């Protein structure tokens, strides 16, 4: 062969400036998420005060008064301790809802994309029906049927997110199933299930991971909303959403009671979103050279 090509002439362009920003996103996101997880773990063992201890003589203390860093609420409970324990609820909620939605949504979406035809129609119309129910309404229904509580509310939220995951999975898989490497895998005898797991999933993982982190933060928000309505986490278990609700009456006098739980929610949601972006980039082998 006379004209041997030089090896590796096809270096991808290096996204320098953008890459640096992305890495910053990732680091910030990861730090926030690790911070939330650490807080949750610590709160199992230690909190400054008992978060559920009602003390009539310590009602509505300001920040730093009598050893309460963030002050106390209208029942004299320590706000910092409540927020710390509330992070347990937030993480539990996110994990439960996202797990339910991906465990059912990904196989459904994959099935629709792999089989096409009437299977796809049935799966996607079923998704549409679930999608037509507002998540909060679904949660109210389930809570009414079973019992109010964090778990049942989150199972409802998880079910409500199934169509979202199924749609994203199907949409992304469809284009991958059309690619020639899938046809090649079929010519060497792979079945569609194997192709979906081994070839399609890794190629849509980045889309799914971003979706998962978004759903994770949405679930935290949904729990806050449900608790705000009083059908989520039941007292005395602390929850950021319920803290917000409890603060409603006093928001004119002590906005701090609403600000701190609200800040915790916003920060956690932001952390997961940033982390999702970062993980997506980390999973892409095409960007590997720019990382090293």
């Amino acid at each position, binding site marked *: 062969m006379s004209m041997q090509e030089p090896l590796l002439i*096809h270096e991808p362009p290096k996204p320098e400036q953008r890459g640096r920003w992305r890495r910053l996103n990732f680091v910030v996101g990861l730090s926030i998420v690790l911070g939330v997880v650490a807080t949750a773990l610590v709160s199992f063992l230690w909190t400054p005060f008992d978060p559920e201890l009602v003390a009539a003589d310590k009602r509505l203390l300001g920040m730093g008064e009598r050893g309460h860093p963030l002050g106390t609420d209208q029942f004299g409970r320590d706000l910092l301790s409540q927020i710390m324990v509330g992070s347990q609820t937030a993480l539990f909620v996110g994990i439960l809802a996202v797990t339910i939605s991906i465990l059912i949504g990904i196989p459904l979406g994959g099935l629709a994309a792999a089989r096409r035809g009437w299977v796809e129609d049935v799966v996607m119309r079923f998704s549409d029906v679930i999608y037509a129910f507002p998540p909060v309404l679904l949660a109210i229904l389930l809570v009414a049927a079973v019992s109010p509580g964090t778990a049942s509310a989150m199972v409802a939220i998880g079910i409500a997110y199934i169509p979202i995951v199924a749609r994203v999975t199907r949409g992304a898989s469809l284009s991958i199933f059309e690619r020639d*490497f899938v046809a*090649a*895998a079929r010519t*060497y005898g792979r079945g569609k299930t194997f192709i979906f797991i081994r070839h399609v999933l890794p190629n849509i993982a980045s889309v799914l991971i971003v979706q998962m982190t978004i759903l994770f933060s949405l679930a935290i928000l949904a729990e806050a909303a449900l608790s705000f309505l009083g059908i989520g986490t039941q007292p005395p278990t602390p929850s950021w959403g319920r803290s917000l609700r409890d603060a409603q009456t006093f928001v004119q006098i002590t906005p701090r009671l609403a600000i701190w739980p609200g800040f915790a929610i916003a920060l956690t949601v932001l952390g997961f979103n940033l982390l999702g972006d970062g993980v997506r980039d980390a999973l892409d082998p095409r960007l590997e050279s720019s990382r090293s």
Partner: protein
Amino acid sequence: MSLLDVQNLTVSHGGLALVNDISFTVERGQRLGIIGESGSGKTLTALAILGLLADNLSARGSITLDGRPLLGLDEESMCAVRGDNISMIFQEPMTALNPVMRIGRQVAEPLRLHRDLDTDAAMSLAVELLDSVGIEHPERRARSYPHELSGGQRQRAMIAMALACGPDLVIADEPTTALDVTVQAQVLSVLRDQVLAHHTALILITHDLPVVASMTDKVIVLRDGEIVDRGPTGTVFDGASSTYTAELVAAVPPMSRSSIAEAKPEGDAPAGTPLVEVRDVHRQYKLRRTSLFETRPVIKALDGVSVDIYPGETFGIVGESGSGKSTLARLIVGLDRPTSGEVHVDGIDVSAGHSLRPLRDVAQMVFQDPMGSLDPRMRVGEVIAEPLRSLGIAGDHPARVAGLLEAVSLPTDVVDRYPHEFSGGQRQRIAIARALAPGPRLLVADEPVSALDMSVQTVTLELLRELKEQFDLTMIFISHDLSVVHEICERVIVLEHGRIVERGAVGTVFGSPKEPYTRTLVEAIPRLDGSFLTPSSAAR
């Protein structure tokens, strides 16, 4: 003074010069060809002239149009130049046209922008323009959306748009690469007639030497961002002053050299039992219902095809896009099932659509786009070992993978790399190695070199030929490129609208075609001696 004067143009990314210190001029009415393979900097040069370089690229040197400097002009003044003085025709008209805007309005847009015409005047001019580039029923077509037009019509509309304001210079970047060969001939002749009629200068950027030969009077040859050769078109290709140009010229298949058909010796008539038997195969696709009460419209991708392919031969399938050649390939390797008819490969009934496990050992496929046919998330070693694992072939897999890599002339240490780290030609070799992994007897290659640069095409074809001998393969070679098929195949069928219109030995079919369709295909091939675009083939 030259119309366009490019002096010491350097385009760089970071510290790396992608276009390195090139100078050239274009006179009024002159047609310049810029030749180069992918990565040679030919498109960057065009974008630099138009001031359309991406933000992370910087251009130095000087570019003047009619004595007016273009480089360093602010965006607003550059906008006034684009479309009015210089316009561009892109490779893929489907993406270069706005899909939600009617053709007429798109062609009229530059007129309204630069000529300050009102809507009606611009529209009637647009219709005239569409008529002049050979679009039938221009008034009706002006109201169509891009997807309602064929690829050739879209590219004609692009030409109309580029010529709308009577620019001094038109830059066409691979304008016909995405088109079938007969459509390419039509579009090129329209483009040539138009620039000649309006005395417009043309820069034609392409990797296709015969196209340049028939379209331009001056060429420059780019390699790695530098000009390696320049001169009048005929002289550069005949004299071949640089070795690189000589290599490029040598890479042109014999059939694309001149219109005088080169005799190809006929091989022995095939004998024995056929390896592949295709019996009266039909494949129909049902489209979506257009109305509730109509029956679903049917597309006949294959319409009664019968063919026998014998062990050891290289069998060509040619035809334009939509002729059913890929469908036939997919039927043979069992990726699809015929609506009726039978396909047997090595005695295995492929058309049954089940228990195809034995077929996987016998028939493997190489696909057109080597980027799409390799899983981007798998390392090369895994990619090639996949068929072995899937088919449960025992043995020392790493050793087999190494052997296969050696067979396709790739170093064995590439197993830990990902596909995106390789060039197109190298990726295609990986795909070939994977296809050979189960030790097939039949290799179905669907446009295996169409996505590759000309010189890489030659090397890859040579490799396929060697592998065919080494592994004792039967090969089905599918291509729209007649000259490639002519080079590598012994027997051939010509498909049109799912039917075989002609069959026989390659030399006979292409040398003295009996069917008018085959003749059109053969005549439409651009030749290095510039002898295509005769009035007969330019006619619609």
